[in-house]
């Protein structure tokens, strides 16, 4: 999919979402994600974080309002156009959503296989990535035999294997200890530096403070965006390196 650098990755305008006839879980949500931006998505449980992410990874259509992804209006996009959009999106689900009957390798290979990538390329890319996330020895293990942290890394590997333009993670540090949590965040920083737009939903306010990225705050279905403070990173300059993005450019609310 060709998108020029000025096309927002995601643009929401007055988006409302309700399930069935229930109350609106999201109300008048408006924001823009610029290419290469990094946002945290915070808010109390039940504020609609997961629903907002679902709209962004095309698991739901909005009840009202405009959702544009990569310049495509989701309301008018045909079903046949959605897979191509989804292939540009990587998602780390809160509950991982790994397929238990498939090996680690096959789980990570899934996005490449559904995109009909040649099997030799699949093998090379997946093995490389599994080595990078430290799961090379567990390549043939099935998810039920993996620890929480390992499952999480499989889930992240699956989300990034096809080099998505937009990467979303729902509570990626929820089930791992702090050390692992910061390691994962480091991985996201690295991907962000390579140009991936990132949205991380989290409860971890300490991490949000430390990393200093812009924050999308959901409360009672309404969204407010505060610019990032992008100060010195807790991960240290040696790990992160200088960011080529200035805080003001990272992303902004409309």
């Amino acid at each position, binding site marked *: 999919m060709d998108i020029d650098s000025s096309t927002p990755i995601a643009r929401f305008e007055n988006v409302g979402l309700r399930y069935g006839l229930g109350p609106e879980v999201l109300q008048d949500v408006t924001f823009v994600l610029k290419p290469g931006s990094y946002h945290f998505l915070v808010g109390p449980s039940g504020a609609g974080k997961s629903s907002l992410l679902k709209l962004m990874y095309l698991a*739901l259509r909005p009840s009202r309002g405009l959702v544009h992804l990569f310049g495509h209006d989701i309301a008018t996009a045909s079903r046949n156009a959605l897979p191509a959009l989804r292939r540009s999106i990587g998602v780390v689900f809160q509950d991982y959503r790994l397929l238990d009957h498939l090996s680690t390798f096959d789980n990570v290979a899934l996005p490449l296989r559904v995109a009909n990538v040649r099997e030799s390329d699949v093998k090379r890319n997946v093995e490389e990535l599994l080595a990078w996330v430290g799961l090379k020895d567990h390549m043939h293990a099935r998810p039920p035999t993996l620890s929480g942290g390992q499952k999480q890394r499989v889930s992240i590997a699956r989300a990034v294997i096809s080099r998505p333009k937009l990467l979303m993670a729902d509570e990626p540090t929820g089930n791992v200890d702090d050390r692992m949590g910061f390691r994962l965040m480091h991985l996201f920083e690295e991907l962000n530096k390579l140009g991936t737009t990132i949205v991380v939903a989290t409860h971890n306010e300490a991490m949000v403070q430390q990393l200093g990225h812009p924050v999308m705050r959901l409360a009672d279905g309404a969204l407010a965006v505060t610019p990032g403070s992008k100060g010195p990173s807790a991960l240290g300059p040696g790990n992160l390196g200088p960011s080529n993005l200035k805080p003001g450019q990272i992303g902004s609310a409309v």
Partner: protein
Amino acid sequence: MFARRTDLPLDKDALSRFLPWLIAFMIFLAALAQAGLIGLDDLARRWDRGMAATLTVQIPADPDANEASNARRLQNAMNMLSETQGVVSVSVISHDKVLELLSPWLGMVEAADVPLPRLIDVETDPALKVNAEALQQKLTQTIPGAQVDDHGVWLARLIDMVRTLELLAAAVLGLILLSVMATVMFATRTGLTVHAEAIEVLHLTGAHDRYIAKQFASRALALGLRGGLYGLGLAVPTLFALGHMAGRIQTGMLPEMALPVLGWLSLALLPALSAFVAGLTARITVMRNLRRML
């Protein structure tokens, strides 16, 4: 068979174990229906061909006349028949044979006890179409009471019945195919429900509907083929046994009841047909059901 990696654990579904047997029983019935269809069609055509080329002429015995005059009448008839254009051969059916044919009705009787008609078997050239009515007239002029029977009416009714049976067999075949389709459709729908979560993950990672449908379709194809082969495996010995039994009761009247080679070949295609129908049905079912998802 068709062992390939699938992203959905379709092999472990309970239905995957039962579906081949359900299909097997249906294909077994389909094979019997099809064999019946082919056998009947073959029978009807052979009757049509075989019987159209024979006539039976009956010369009644005159109880008052002596044997010599009866023999003379028979000889007259034979001569006239032989001279008729289109007649290939003429042969008298012996008294003993006539008695044998009548024995179910009369019991064992001596030829001299009853005035038996003489029967002449006439073989005609099917291409020249001997006119039975004209022959009848010609014969009765010299031999009163002579009767020409071309089996036409009897044969026409028999063939009518066979054709009706054929239609019935074809309808049974069609209904069985519909049942296979319905079975595969319900099995596929169950699979879609059971694997809804995995299917959503596939969708969210960018899988097209046809990618998912292909997994269901290739699985159904394999199960359909296996079921078809099981069914055929059951049907072939059954048909052989039936053929053997039919062979034992064979009479001169019934043409041979064996299935022609082409018939066996068409039966061999049933597993391929059930595989194709199962695969296509699964694919259509998945495509239609997924269309309702985002």
